[in-house]
C-alpha cells in the first residue's frame, strides 16, 4: 500500500502507482477538506498526478521532487 488514508489526510509514500489513482479519487471526493501529505512521495504515476491536479487537495507536505512541486503549483 503506497497510500495511507488517515482521518484528515492521505499519505502518499514512495512511488504511487496507477492503480491507486481510482481509490485516491474516491477518497478525495468523499472528504470535505481533502488534503494529501507528499513529504515521503518519491514519484507518482501520471494518472495520480492528474488526480492531484484535477481535485487540487491541500498539500500538507511538499514532495521532494522540485518538478513535481512546481507542477502542483507549490514551488
Amino acid at each position: 500500500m503506497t497510500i495511507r488514508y488517515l482521518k484528515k489526510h492521505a499519505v502518499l509514500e514512495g512511488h504511487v502507482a496507477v492503480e491507486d489513482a481510482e481509490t485516491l479519487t474516491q477518497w478525495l471526493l468523499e472528504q470535505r477538506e481533502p488534503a494529501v501529505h507528499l513529504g515521503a512521495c518519491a514519484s507518482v504515476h501520471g494518472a495520480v498526478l492528474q488526480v492531484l491536479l484535477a481535485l487540487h487537495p491541500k498539500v500538507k507536505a511538499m514532495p521532494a521532487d522540485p518538478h513535481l512541486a512546481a507542477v502542483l503549483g507549490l514551488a
Partner: protein
Amino acid sequence: MSQSDLLDQFILEARECLEAIGKRLLDVEQDPANEELLNDLFRSVHTLKGNCGLFEFKPLERVVHAGEDLLDRVRHRTLAYSAELADALLEAMDYSAQLIDQIERHGRIEDGADARSTAHAQALRAFLREDASAGVAAAGAAEAAPRAGAAAPWIDRLDMAAIVSKPGVLALHYLPEPGCFFKGEDPWRLARTVPGLLQLDVVGASAWPQGEDRTGWDCYQCNLDIVLSTDAPRAEVESHFRCVAEQVAWRDEGSDPVAIDVPCENPESPVLLNRVAALWSDQCESLARAGDSTGTVRAARTALTRLLACLGETATPGASAALADLSEGVSASSLLAWARGNAPALEIGRDVVDERMSGPTGRDRDVAAPSQRAEEGSATQAPKVLKVGQEKIDRLMDLIGEMVVAKNSLPYLAQRAEEVFQQRELAREIKAQYAVINRIAEDMQHAIMQVRMLPVGAVFQRFGRLIRDISRKLGKEVNLVVEGEDTEADKNVIEPLADPLIHILRNSLDHGIELPEVRRAAGKPPAGTIRIVARQESDRVIIEIHDDGAGVNAARVRSKAVERGLIPADRAATLSDHDAVQLIFLPGFSTADEVSDLSGRGVGMDVVRTAIERINGGVELSSVQGQGTMLRLSLPLSMAVTTVMVVECAGRRLGVPMDMIVETVRVPACDIHHFKQARTTVLRGRVVSLRALNELLALEAAPKPNEEGELAVLVIRHGNESVGLLVDHFQGASDIILKPLEGVLAGLVGFAGTALMGDGGVLMVLNPKELLQ
C-alpha cells in the same frame, strides 16, 4: 585507399543509393504511412549526402541536401507526401544520376551544373516553404497541438528568456492521447525523465471538472498537457519520446538559428563535444546491456546517427555513411563494436590536439581524417561482402575457360602415350589424373558461374519508375506486380534483358492496358495490372509478362502485315490466330496508326526478338482478345558454356549450337527430291528443304554420302520451319566456351564465334540463322 579508388567507390555507392532511392520513392508512394519505408528512404538519401561530403561536389550535395531536408520533414509527419513531391524528388534524383555520370567520365562536375542544381534544390525547398506558409499539420498529429512556428501558445508556458538565451535548448509540447494509461504509458514519468530537463509544466488539456461533474469524472482518461524544455540534444530527446513521437510537437526550429538538427555552426565547441562523447558512451553502455532487444538497438542506432548529424558532416564524414550501411537487423553486439570503434570522442580529442599543435595547417588534417576513419571503421568490422570489378570476374572466367580447354588435352595425351609410345601404364595414370583435374575444373567453373549469377530482379527494379511515369503520361492506371525476382541467371543473360523488357512494357502500357473508362465499360477494374513473373525451368529461365489489357487483335495484325507487305495475303489468311499474332515480331511491323513517342515506329517487337535471340533466348506471344496478352521469354541460365554439335564438312570441323538443332538423320540419296536448284526430302510426312553446308560456305565439294549411300542431314530450326543442312559426318556433341569473333574477323557473317578444342584445334561455330538468309 587512394583518392581515385575512393572516388570509384563513391560512384559505385552513389549509384546504389540512387537506385535504392528511386525504388523506395515508388514504394512510399504506394504506402505513404509506412514508417519503415520512409526511414529507409531517408537513410539512403542521407548516406548519399554523407558520401558527397567526402568530395567537393557542391552541386550534387546541394540537390541531395534539399531532398534530405524535405524527406526529413515527411518522415516526421510535418509534411504530407504527395505525387508532386515525389515527382520533384524523382527529377532531382535523375539529375543527381546525371551528375554522377559526369563525375565518372571526367572526375568532376561540369561547369554549367551549378545553375541547374540550384534550380532543382529550390524546387525541392519550395515544398518546405509552401508547407510552412500553409501551416499544413501532419496527418495523425494531435489536433489540439499547434505545430507552426514560435507563435504556438504552449511556448508561453515556458520561460522563453531561458530558451532563447542558451543555444541548443529545446522546447516541446507533449499531448498524450486520452487512452494512454490503458497502454501502460505514464506520460508524467516520461516527461519527468527527459534527459537534460530544464522546465516542466503540466496543465489539463481541457478544463478540470468542477462541482457536480467531479463525481462522474474518470481519472483514467488522460487529460494531461505537458510542455517542457531541455538542453539535451534533440536526437536524445527524440529517442526518449520515440514511442509517442506523433504526440510530441517541437518548437519550430526554422525560427531558431541554432537548431540542433542543422549541423552545428561550431562543431569543435568543447561543450558540444563533451556532451556528444558522454552520450556516445551512454549508447555503448545501453547496447552492452541490451542483449538482443531490437528496439534498443534501433533506438541506439538512431541516437548514434543523430549524434553524428549533430557533429556535422564535415567532422564525421565516413562515420554516418558507415553507420547507415550497417544492415537493418544489425545485432546489438556488432553495433556496439562499431560504436566503440568509431567513438567520435577519441577522434575529436585527437583532432583538437592536432589542430592546436599544427596551428594553421589544421585544415589539411581534416581532409586526411575521413579516409583514415573509414579504414579504421572497416578494420573493426570484418567485411562480409566483397565488391569486385566485373572485369576481374570476367578475367577469372576466361582463365577457368582456358583451364577447361587445357585439361581436355589430357585424354589426347593419354591416347598418344598408349598408341605411339606403347605406354599403357602411363596412359592409365594420365587418365586418372585427368579425372581429378576434370572434377576440380568443373567445380571451379560452377563456382565462378555462381559468382556471375544475378537475380532477375536487378533489371526489374527500374520498371516501377518506368510504369509510373508512362502511365501518368497516358492517363492510365496500372499496377505492377513482380513475382520471382530472386530467380537467378548469368549476368550476361540478365543485363541485355533490360532494353527488350522496357520495349515490352511500353507496348503493354501503350497498346495493351486501356484507359480507365474503357476498362470500366468492359467490366474490368479501372486499374490495369502488369505482372512480371520469373522462374526457373530446368536449365532455362522463364520470364512472363502478363497484362490484363485489350489483347492483340489477330485480324488487325493480319491485315496490317499484308498492308505493309510483310507476308502475302493468301498466306496471312491461312494462319491460325496464334500464329498470326506472332507476326508482330516481324521487322517493320506496327499496328499503331500514328507514331507516338512511346511506340508505333515499327521498331518494337522485332528489336525485342533480335535482342532476346542474341542471348540464345526465345520469345513467344499469346493473347486473348479483351483479356490480355502474355509474352513468354525463355532464356538460358548461362551463356558461358555452349553445347555444340560438331560436324564435318569437306574435311573441316564446324560447330552448330545445340539449341537450334531439331534432329540428326541419315537420308538415303534416293529420297532426296531435286526441283531445279532446290532439294527437299520428306521427314515424318513433312517436306523439309535441304541446303548443302558446303554450298552455303562456298566450299567446292559435294556432300559425301556414307558407305550405305546415305547423306547426313542436320535438321535445324529456322524461324517457324525446319531446314535440313547436308553435312559429311556427325562427330558428336561437345561443351565449348564460345568466344565471339574479334578484330578483322568481327565483320564475318555466318559464324557465331570460335572455340578451342581439347586437342588444340580451333572450332568455328556457325550461326545457321545468318547463314541461311
